[in-house]
């Protein structure tokens, strides 16, 4: 059926905060070292890890407590595939700065890579405990829960482990600063109020940030300069909007095809816009709801998953193959779906039925 199960294998791209290059964080540092960390970051970006490590060690030699530097060092170890060292750095960092969620998150990523999901879970729960609105940690935690659930199911039902080997890759956090920003924060009103991120200083990063603990970067009081980063990083594929009204030229196949394609695109477009009226309107009253749900239950579920979803949704239709047989049309296509923390490409078949001048969806199948 249509909805993308969160359990489907999904390969979350490592969420790189590209915006990091802007180098907001650098502002924290004492001027003398100001350009060391950007250098380190540049080297990381270029994949020159040994050099980056050298540089960050040099930086840390004079300020061993510096959280930013140590965080980068942990990242470098991670990139160099030295998980034990990376875990050591992030563990120590989380002990020294228990209020920072990022080290916990990255610890969890490393533990998850080693299939130590219980440890990953503990670390993520710590991250969330320090920052109840930390979206990446939530998503990662969701993945870890799913993984733990799957392990438990394997034991419960004596399933063959090999077929559940879809390894979710958790999102590593590349940046130490706990920021606000729509992408990174789960819209959770109750919590948001408590979270320090709520006050979003419109001003550019200013002196306020140079907090008492220079290295620690005063994490919770985050400047809002790079809020866009995380989500924006996910490529928002614009669905091909084909709002052209279906020209009522019946009979001819080609024209029929165009109508179906238009209906198809209209459906994807409504989904992307989270326009539930248009979206649900694309379905015929005879639509075969999945698992025999009631129409109402199904509509509620769709509304929850579409309108109720935070962040952007993008649904696009790729290479549709249309076959028309009388008043029934079958469209087979690749559906590219992107939303916060989830992207998928699936082969989908929609069966349309001509209803008056419209083609409405009668069946929806995902393969």
């Amino acid at each position, binding site marked *: 059926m249509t909805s993308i199960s969160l359990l489907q294998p999904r390969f979350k791209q490592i969420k790189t905060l590209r915006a990091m290059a802007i180098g907001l964080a650098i502002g924290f540092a004492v001027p003398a070292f100001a350009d060391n960390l950007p250098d380190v970051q540049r080297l990381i970006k270029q994949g020159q890890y040994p050099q980056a490590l050298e540089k960050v060690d040099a930086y840390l030699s004079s300020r061993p407590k510096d959280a930013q530097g140590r965080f980068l060092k942990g990242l470098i170890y991670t990139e160099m595939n030295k998980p034990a060292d990376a875990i050591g750095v992030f563990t120590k960092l989380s002990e020294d700065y228990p209020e920072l969620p990022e080290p916990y998150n990255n610890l969890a990523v490393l533990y998850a890579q080693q299939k130590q999901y219980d440890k990953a879970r503990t670390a993520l729960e710590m991250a969330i405990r320090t920052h109840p609105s930390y979206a990446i940690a939530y998503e990662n935690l969701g993945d870890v829960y799913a993984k733990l659930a799957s392990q*438990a199911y394997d034991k419960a039902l004596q399933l063959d482990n090999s077929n559940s080997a879809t390894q979710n890759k958790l999102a590593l956090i590349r940046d130490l600063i706990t920021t606000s920003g729509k992408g990174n924060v789960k819209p959770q009103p109750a919590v948001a109020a408590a979270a320090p991120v709520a006050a979003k200083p419109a001003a550019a990063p200013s002196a306020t940030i140079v907090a008492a603990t220079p290295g620690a970067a005063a994490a919770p009081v985050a400047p809002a300069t790079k809020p866009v980063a995380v989500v924006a990083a996910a490529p928002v594929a614009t669905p091909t909007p084909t709002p052209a009204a279906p020209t009522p030229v019946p009979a001819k196949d080609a024209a029929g095809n165009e109508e179906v394609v238009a209906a198809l695109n209209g459906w994807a477009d409504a989904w992307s816009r989270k326009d539930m009226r248009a979206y649900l309107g694309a379905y015929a009253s005879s639509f075969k709801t999945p698992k025999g749900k009631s129409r109402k239950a199904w509509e509620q579920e769709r509304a929850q998953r579409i309108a109720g979803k935070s962040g952007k949704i993008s649904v696009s239709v790729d290479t549709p193959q249309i076959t028309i047989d009388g008043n029934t049309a079958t469209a087979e296509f690749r559906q590219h779906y992107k939303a916060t923390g989830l992207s998928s490409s699936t082969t989908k078949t929609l069966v349309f039925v001509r209803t008056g001048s419209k083609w409405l969806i009668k069946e929806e199948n995902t393969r």
Partner: protein
Amino acid sequence: MKFGRKLALLGLAVALAAGAAARLKDQPATQEASVKELSAIALARQTTDKAGADSPLPLVVSDSGPEEVLTRIFAEIEANRLSNALQLTEGLLHQHPNYRLANLIKGDLLLARKQPIDTFGALNNAPADKVADLRAEAIARLAAYREKPPADFVPRYLLQMPPDQRFAIVVDTKRSRLYVYENDLKNGGRPRFVADYYVTQGKLGAEKLVEGDKKTPVGVYHVTANLPRQKLADLYGNGAFPLNYPNEWDKRQGRSGSGIWLHGTPSNTFARPPRASDGCVVLTNQDLDVVAKNLQVGLTPVIISNSVEWLSLDDWARERSELNKSIDAWRVDWESRDTDRYLKHYSPRFKAGKQSLDEFAEQKKQVNAGKEWIKLKIDNLSVFRNPGKEEVVVVTFDQDYRSNNLNNQMKKRQYWLREGGQWKIIYEGSA
């Protein structure tokens, strides 16, 4: 009795609680909404948990079996306190790492944190038979936990236990439950409830008839041997106690088969589904170890019933005294050497081996003719009612027969059948 209805309700509660982890049965109309809430609740709880929104639960798990913890887990699920439920489940798994049911619940509770779930065993494409097995186990265990045998009622079958028999085992196949009763000699040999345990029975249920029918027999048996773990395949777990199926009554009814044992559980699982064996009665290893201490080879009865009938102590005492009177009248009439009076205790359907009642009567008449006196002593009498529609009791005793020309001691077993309101012997032989 009232037992039954509660059980059904409970079954429903379990199915619902375990399924949606939300109070579906209270709000059927808003089912969808409540399931959806689950994810929101689960999510919200993640943030508030550690802050102390949930009252912390002590992780104490008793050794008496998982029923109590399971009950608490499902209560937490019903109350939508999923974190508590998960904590308890993990405690249970800490104690029994390969407990499949607990693992399934854990999977559901974790998955519920990630997405709404709407069924017990919510994993996509979960093998339905295995999920159904675990659900059945959950229902059986929870029902048994709520439905302890009533204190002033006793199983009808345990009418008279001999003084050297310390315990009796009663199995209820419908409830997947094994009850241990003590022979309370201080109270006139009244059965006293000791403990009850979850058991597995045959794949195809109870009332075994023929070899290979994968059913558990129903009847009065006893353990005939004690096979230690070292002599057994892993399938039998910590030990095995063969039963004397088919007994005399089974054979007379034409029932066949063999190798019906009471035994433990293989090492790869804590428990087996309610219906999984080839006819054996299976306990978890920890339960078998406890029960084994109370089993006396050749003595401890194992009475297997479809559905245990419970009698009030008064009714039980009446039934017992009625039978004891019948047995004593038979003894006295034998001593009287009045063969006709003696033979009135035997059913027209009586058979001892190939001997019919007529042949038996003829023989008795001849024997009695040569007697000047007979003394008959009965010791270690046991009277166990056979479960089932027919009113049959199994009577076993040490018979000390003395007469002017013959003395004989033997262990005798009789099957008495109630015919026209009278208890009559339908089988007798040495035990």
